[in-house]
């Protein structure tokens, strides 16, 4: 075994380890960026319960099953649940966060495009889970 050279094996191992380190660093870095909430983000409390979503804005106004936001403004969602575990998802904006009873999870985003977007529960939460939907209305300020 010791008679033959191992240089090609070390290069092979080096390339694979370097790629794995790169993958880990990229993922770690993006995770950090995604979790960095802008200071001027407006807070929206999101509550999931069987089988609808309730939203409460900073000024106390509440919405059920629909959410109106302004284009270009950062929003921080404080997501929780009153009964079982749900998952708050806005597919078009890659927003996904579990709604867990007794816990507040946060996720933030900026709606860059005006329009209507689907909100959907992504954690099976009982009989009407499939229809635990809502609509996100992104309004153009101009």
């Amino acid at each position, binding site marked *: 075994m010791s008679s033959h050279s191992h240089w090609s094996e070390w290069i*092979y191992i080096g*390339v*694979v380890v*370097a*790629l794995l*380190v*790169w*993958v880990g*660093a*990229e*993922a*770690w*870095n*993006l995770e*950090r*960026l*995604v979790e*960095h909430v*802008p*200071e*001027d983000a407006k807070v929206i409390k999101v509550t999931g319960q069987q089988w609808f979503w309730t939203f409460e804005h900073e000024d106390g106004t509440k919405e059920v099953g629909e959410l109106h936001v302004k284009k*270009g403004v*950062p929003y921080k969602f404080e997501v929780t649940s009153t009964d079982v575990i749900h998952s708050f998802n806005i597919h*078009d*904006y*890659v*927003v996904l966060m579990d709604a867990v009873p007794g816990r507040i999870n946060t996720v933030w*985003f*900026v709606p*860059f495009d005006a329009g209507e977007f689907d909100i959907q529960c992504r954690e099976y939460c009982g009989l009407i889970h499939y229809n635990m939907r809502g609509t996100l209305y992104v309004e153009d300020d101009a």
Partner: protein
Amino acid sequence: MVLSILIILPSLQYAFAQDEPGEYMDRRVEIWNLFFRMMTVAFTIGAVVSGTLIWLVIRFRESNPKATPTKYEGTGELDG
């Protein structure tokens, strides 16, 4: 290289990613970009590993004219 990936590049990015008014990260772009980069790495590693295995099997098959007997053949050591 490892140091630059783990420490220097993220700190540079962090320095430039500070809150500037009116400029926010688009998570759709960032997350999907990461996904496509990861897929590229995954398929590259898959191609390299499976390519190496295919080369190994073809090169070291018994019927290869370049195959040479190992030092164990004919010694009875491998007969169990």
